[in-house]
């Protein structure tokens, strides 16, 4: 490696002779290095802190979780021998045949079907409007940001005030109020939670779009305007394509965050009620793995969930925004 690069590296000042060090200057002129590490090997350097972090902090827990999923594992004190037999795929089979788990996957699907489209549409529309607004800009932006920063314990109280049995919504609906009420109705509990999360998280996605909107070139709007496009047409012909990357991100993040739903059913419906209709896979993972001491089962569930979400996220990226590669 060294000899092949020095020929080309002659023009390079001496401290950079060692080709093993991918330093901060363009390394594109070293063919072998380029062949091994890509056109711009400096990418490795830029990515290094993240990679080191991922290895130092996440590699062990992750590998360990995979390991646990093949054992009837039990967390034990250092040096204590507890029988943790290898069980092969038993945990995976147990997960996939457990009615509570299957129900939770169904629940989270209902959640995503409501939450994700709503999030994408509302956040892009609201961000576009907020971006153009002149008066009360700070006030409006703060308003939309506030649910996102407020601790869940407090929001849950507000939501119960709105959607509780004797809450505001039911009072307004009068005889049209559902019975049993929203959060204790198996058919409505999950949609209500999905609305809650959409509302709570929307500020996050609006911010993402607001930042992305700053980079849509101004002249695109101008030329659209010269072509006689009204605000609605320029929204679809300029804004939507202009923030496509952000849309892919919002789509992916809302799916990932939604699939990891935990706090809301934990707090809002007191542990996944009624009858497990609002239990999420992560809630079940928490109950089985941490509360009940079956981390092998929980790990298998977590890994199945992770793989499923990764597949969905990568599909979203492919279909919604693959062109950047």
């Amino acid at each position, binding site marked *: *490696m060294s000899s092949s690069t020095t020929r080309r590296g002659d023009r390079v000042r001496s401290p950079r002779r060692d080709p*093993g*060090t*991918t330093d901060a200057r363009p390394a594109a002129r070293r063919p072998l290095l380029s062949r*091994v*590490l890509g056109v711009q090997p400096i990418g*490795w350097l830029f990515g*290094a802190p993240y*990679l*080191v972090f991922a*290895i*130092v902090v996440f*590699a*062990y827990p992750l*590998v*360990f979780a995979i390991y646990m999923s093949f054992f009837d594992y*039990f*967390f*034990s*004190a*250092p*040096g*204590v*021998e*507890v029988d943790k037999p290898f069980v092969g795929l038993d945990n995976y089979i147990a997960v996939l045949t457990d009615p*509570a788990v299957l129900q939770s996957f169904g629940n989270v699907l209902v959640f995503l079907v409501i939450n994700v489209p709503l999030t994408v549409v509302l956040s892009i529309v609201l961000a576009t409007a907020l971006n153009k607004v002149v008066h009360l800009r700070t006030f409006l932006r703060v308003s939309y940001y506030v649910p996102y920063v407020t601790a869940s314990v407090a929001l*849950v*109280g507000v939501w*119960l005030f709105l959607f*509780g*049995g004797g809450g505001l919504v039911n009072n307004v609906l009068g005889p049209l109020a559902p019975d*049993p*009420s929203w*959060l*204790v109705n*198996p058919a409505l509990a999950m949609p209500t939670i999905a609305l809650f999360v959409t509302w709570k998280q929307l500020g996050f996605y609006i911010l993402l779009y607001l930042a992305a909107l700053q980079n849509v070139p101004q002249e695109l709007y101008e030329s659209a305007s010269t072509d006689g496009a009204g605000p609605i047409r320029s929204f679809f012909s300029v804004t939507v394509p202009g923030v496509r990357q952000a849309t892919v991100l919002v789509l992916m993040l809302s799916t990932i965050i939604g699939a990891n739903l935990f706090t809301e059913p934990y707090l*809002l*419906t*007191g*542990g*996944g*009620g*009624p*009858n*497990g209709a609002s239990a999420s896979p992560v809630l079940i993972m928490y*109950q*089985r793995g*941490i*509360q*009940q*001491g*079956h981390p092998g089962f929980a790990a298998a569930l977590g890994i199945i969930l992770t793989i499923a979400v990764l597949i969905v996220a990568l599909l979203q990226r492919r279909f919604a925004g693959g062109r950047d590669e």
Partner: protein
Amino acid sequence: MQRRTRIALVAATAVAALSLAACSSGGGGTATDAMTSHGPISIWYSNNAAEVEWGKGMVEAWNADHPDEQITAQEIPAGKSSEEVITAAITAGTTPCLVFNNLPAATGQFQKQGGLVDLSKFDDGTSYIEARSGAIADQYKSADGGFYQLPWKSNPVMIFYNKDLFTAAGLDAENPPLSTYDEFLASAKQLVSSGAATYAINPSPTSEFFQPNFDFIPLYAAQTGGKGIVEDGKATFANDDGYAVADFWSSIYSDDLAGKEKYEGDAFVDGKAAMAIVGPWAIAYYGEKIANWGAVPVPTENGTPADETYTFSDAKSVGMYSSCENQGTAWDVLKFATSEEQDGQLLDITGQMPIRTDLATTYSDYFAANPDYEVFGDQANRTVEDPTDPESVAMMQALRDAYTKAIISGDGDARSALDEAAKKIDSLAGQG
């Protein structure tokens, strides 16, 4: 390239270090040198104001006399997170010597993890615990006959009722008809139909595993004269007694005498519910808000005299953790903290009942000065604890899931749901 190798190296070292750590030897359930070792120790206690006050006083008193065996104390939350905190700390070997906040239902798991010291391995271990707590101590014994927890204090749950609301509903507030199921249901209906209260009673309808402790389990204990839901690795409740309790709660929910939805705050304090199932810790708290309250034992199908009625203990125990280096000191501190004097302090400050046989006589002055607590002091003699199996939490969750579905939501037959839950518990017990 080199970078990649280095990364791989770091990873390999980390993994190797971890597996080494996992293999190193340490103390398990057998008597070890640590058990005779003396020196400074650390303890955790619950963070509620009253217990912190007691804990600080106890630590101060000990530290003043033991300059070489100082205690350092930290607070942990009494709520849901404390079990996960302890589980994680056991796995990492970072537990303190003593935790004055163990949930008896979680003890089986901590024990299986190898996190707890078997107190019966101390020479005077079993004799001390049994002398202090009497026959009730048996409920805190593990299947292997060891004591992995010291039964510390209980909060025997009873029916608190709001006398003003009872009077408003036209019920006798001094001798409320709440003894049999029929009486209780009739009173409950009257409370709600008269408009005196939104709910007759409002146990939490949520799905957490520990919630049966405040609806099914106390009534079942009373109905059976002191049976736990699991005995000798078998669920005991799939029978007429269990069905009677289930039918009782089913009627409460089907007649809308209790809320089916999580209530923010405390329905009893807010005057929304006329009754509550709770232990004596609440006296100080309710007393401020509801001046006119009374307490009676939980109901049974045909009525049981108060002095024969059992209930759930809502107890906390003290655990000694195997990562402790100076277990000799820890054991001395444990005995000091549960001595007659410190138990008296605990009773005085927190209003919770030390689990001792001689409660009423030893602290007769206290009960004379605080008559409200007397009935709880007496009730403390007849309590039932959750199972100490490693699968306790899973067992209670199984019961809870069946209960919320069939009894609270009224979805399906309550009796067959109990049968199903019992079957699941039996299979879980097999695993333990």
